[in-house]
Every structure is written in C-alpha cells, then in structure tokens.
C-alpha cells in the first residue's frame, strides 16, 4: 500500500511544484545542504555569499522581502550572525520563522561543539561564548545539519517525508564515501603544523588532523598586530611551519608579510560554498580545500 501511495505522490509531484517550501539560509553551505535534502520540493535562497564574512552583513531590501515570505529560515546559530539576523527577522515580521517558530531552524542543534569557553578562558578573548560557530567545516557535522533540516522539512511537508528521508540517506552515504577520499589524501600530512589568520578552522583541523598552532589575529576580530606577527614569525621558524591559512575575506598583506619572512606559503582556503566559482556545492568545498592544502604542502 505504502508503495502505491508514494508512486501516486511521484505522479502528482510535478503538479504541485508551485507548493515548494521557500527556504532562506544565512550562509550558502546551509543552502547547499538544504537543496540536497529538499530536492525539487524546496526553493532556497542564501543571504550571505560564499566570499563574504558571515559575521557582518549589510541589510538589503531583498533579504527582508525573502524572509517575510519564507516558510523556513535556517541559521548557523550560536553567535555567528548576531550582528544582523535578529534585526532582519524583526523587520521581516514573519511569525513562522521567528526564533521558536515552526520554520526556525538552528543548524547547530546536536552539533558537538568545540572551544566552548569556560568562565576561566572567557577573559582571554573568545568572542564566541557558546563555542566556535564554524562547525560546517567538518563534513561529519554536515550530516548532522542534514538530519536537522530533513526533520524540519518532514514536519512541514509530511507528504514528502519519504523523499526527504531518501535524499538524506543519499547525502549521508556520499559524505561517508567522500570523507574517506579526503582523509586518504591528507593522511600523509597528519599533524602538520600550520598557522591560520582567524580562528575559524577548529572543526576542519579536528577532522583532517592538521594542527593549527597560532593565529595572525591576536584575538578573534582584532587585526594582526606587530607583536603578534613577530611572534608568529619566530614560531614558524622555530617549529618549521610553512603554511599560513587565510580566508577569502581577509586581506592577505599580513599573511604575505609573514610568508616572505619565513619562506612559508599562504593558502587561501574556502570557508563557504561559493567562495570561488568552482565551489558549487558542499562537497566541492572540501574537494577544493583538500586540493589547496595538497598543492601547498607538496
């Protein structure tokens, strides 16, 4: 019987495409995952682009309009977007997607967070009081995000539960397959020490076994200072570190300066889908980053 029902649904699916769920996400990575799970049942728009710093977004009218009509809003959560999301949601006047609403999805749900500050180290400069929010940079967390999104889609569009569950399965299996490939490529470089510009790689580092020794920023959000750069140069020399990881939205001057003084290399890794034109999906993101690291180290 169930089989027939889903067959019937498949038959009618093209007819109800107008009833697609309208989803707005804060970053393109969440958009990519939502599209894998929702398939043709969803229409997804991401507010931030992949080459933009997600901490800062200047509101444009279209963002508020999209939010006012959205069925689902997916946010990275923690305190990554506190500078702009509450204000946009407030202006959108859409009860469904307000915090606690039916269509409000906090993608950080169930994610094993890293760097949750204790009361002791809070004074040392952690800007993220709930833990580091760059968790989508671990593909295993991508699976958890996908589960959270699938649960919401099934709740709001129960008629297509089967389809969402099947998509989730495909996505999860693809991550499992790809993660072996990625880890395989990087396995020779396990425990390679690197320097990063901003503290946004702990999840990536954790998954792929790199060791980030220090950052060009003396503390998150504070541009590199002279004493910090001097310190980094001496660390890189004494520990023979040759890689500095930068992000697309940070100026490369400081990283270049350090590289010139140490003979190291600057690698710009993508923090989000869409950071370059070739990164079109969540999988491309890791393909790209793994390749960037490989070419830099070799």
């Amino acid at each position, binding site marked *: 019987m169930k089989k027939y029902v889903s067959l019937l649904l498949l038959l009618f699916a093209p007819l109800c495409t107008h009833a697609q769920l309208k989803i707005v996400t804060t970053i393109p990575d969440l958009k990519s995952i939502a599209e894998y799970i929702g398939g043709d049942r969803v229409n997804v728009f991401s507010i931030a682009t992949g080459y933009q710093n997600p*901490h*800062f977004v*200047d*509101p*444009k*009218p*279209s963002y*508020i*309009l999209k939010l*006012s009509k959205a069925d689902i809003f997916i946010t990275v959560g923690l*305190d990554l977007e*506190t*500078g*702009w999301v509450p*204000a*946009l949601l*407030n*202006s*959108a*006047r859409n009860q469904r997607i307000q915090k606690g609403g039916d269509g409000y999805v906090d993608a950080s749900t169930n994610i094993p967070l890293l760097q949750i500050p204790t009361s002791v180290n*809070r*004074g*040392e*400069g*952690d*800007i993220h*009081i709930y833990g580091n929010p760059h968790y989508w940079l671990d593909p295993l967390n991508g699976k958890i995000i996908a589960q959270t999104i699938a649960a919401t889609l099934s709740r709001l569009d129960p008629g297509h539960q089967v389809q969402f569950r099947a998509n989730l399965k495909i996505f999860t299996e693809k991550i499992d397959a790809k993660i072996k490939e990625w880890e395989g490529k990087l396995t020779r470089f396990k425990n390679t020490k690197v320097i990063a510009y901003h503290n946004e790689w702990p999840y990536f580092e954790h998954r792929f076994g790199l060791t980030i020794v220090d950052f060009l920023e*003396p*503390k*998150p*959000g*504070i541009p590199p*200072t002279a004493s910090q750069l001097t310190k980094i140069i001496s660390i890189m020399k004494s520990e023979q570190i040759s890689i500095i990881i930068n992000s697309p939205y940070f100026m490369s001057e400081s990283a270049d300066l350090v590289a010139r003084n140490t003979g190291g290399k600057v690698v710009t890794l993508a923090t989000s889908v869409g950071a370059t034109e070739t990164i079109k999906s969540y999988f491309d993101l890791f393909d790209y980053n793994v390749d960037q690291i490989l070419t830099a180290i070799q």
Partner: protein
Amino acid sequence: MIDMFTQEFILNALMISVIMGLLLSYLGVHVVGRGIVFVDLALGQISMLGVAFGNFIEKDQTLISIIFTMVGAFLLSFIKIKDKRLKQEAIIGIVYAVASAVTVLLISKSPHGESDISEVLFGSVFTVTYEQIVTMAVTFGIIGFVHVIFRKKFFELTEKFENHQIEEIGVFNLWNFLFYLSIGLAIVLAVRSAGVIPVFSYLIIPPVAAILVSRKMKPMIIISILIALLGSFFGLFFATQYDFPAGSSVVAILGAIFVLLAFVRWGVNLISSK
C-alpha cells in the same frame, strides 16, 4: 520591482530617515556655518569609544556611550581658537584621531574583541524597530523644539564663530554647550539607527548644497531641509528598486543632488559673468 509603500520595513526606514533628515540638515546649517564639519565624526567616535569602554569594563555600553558623548560635547564646547592661523577643525580632528586610537587600544584588550561593538555601531534604517523610531521622534522633537524656540541665541552664536568674534563668546557659554549637547545626543541616536557615514552626510551635504543656492539664512535652511527630505525619499527608493544597502544609497543620492546643484550654480555664474 517592489512597491515600496506596501512594505512595513521600508515605511519605517522612510519615517526614521525623514526624522533624521529634518533635524540633522537643520543642525548642519550651524555646523557648516561654524566650520566644524568633522564634529560629527569626532562625537561619533567618542560614542564609539564609550561603547568600547563599556565593553572593556563589562558594563552597559549604551549608557556609558551616552555619558561619553555628553562629556565629549561639554569639552568640545570649550574649544575657542584665538590664534587666527588655527581653526577649531584642527582640534576636532585631533579629538577624532585620538578617540579612534584609544578605541582600538581598548578593543584589543577587551574580552570579546570586535563583535559586541560592531553590533551597536552598524545600524541600518531597514532594520530599525518601532521603539527606535519612537525614541528618535521624541528626542529629536525636543531638540528641534529647543532650537526653534531659541533660534536667535543659537544663530547669534554661530555668526560670532563665522565672523571670528571669539572674545565675545566667553570661556563657558551656556548656548554653546547646549548646541554641542544637542548635536551629541542627535548623533548618538542617529548613528545607531543609520551608521556613521549616512549621519555625517545628512549633517553636511544638505547645508553645503544649500549654500550653493542661497547665502541668506532662511532660504538656506529651507533648501537644506528640502534636500535632506529628497535625499531620504529617493535614496530609499533607489535602494528598494535596485536592492542596495540603505545608508550608502541615501549618501549617493545626496551626493548626486549636490553635484547637480554645483553644476547649476556654475552655469548661473557663467551666464551672469558674461
């Protein structure tokens, strides 16, 4: 294409821009007349310093920022340069630079870095709340009322600054203090709703453009206010139609009005000199 008048957030943006435009373009006539155009950036920076300090000592940022701005306005009202080689602007520039530097120093030693501070400073009129509009309407209404009632006092003072009659102003001048106080209050509130650069533009571009049209005080004030209102409306219209951030759009339109008037003025001069 969006019909801008059907969207609540655009109407809110228009409302708060009109309130801001009305008062700031009026105060701007004094600011430009006295030759202190950077007073806005200096006071804005002092309010930012207050936010950074509040963040540093982990106390209420808004309150401390307002206190800082008030004290800053009080101190600025003492600036009277008797040496003709110098201008008040020089001192205001120094205040701006030092306040910016100290803000950076404080942030670099604050527990949470930049993120808390950016939240307070980068307002957009598209995301103002109803409460913000009410607060601004009331405060700006009071400031505007005081300025209209005592307009003679304020303009006498501005003329003295214009004519460099510094001796007549005295060491502490109540009206001078009130002037800086009103500018300080207006700027703290406006910056939070619209951001630093749009506020600076509302204060400076309309009066300067108005001077191009008329040198008489009354028409200048009226034209200045008209330009601010036109800039608000068409700036938001432009932002809505082509999907741009609000602040930059308003500044761009105000700039375009200025350029247009400068051309008209140039053309008129050309014809009348023949």
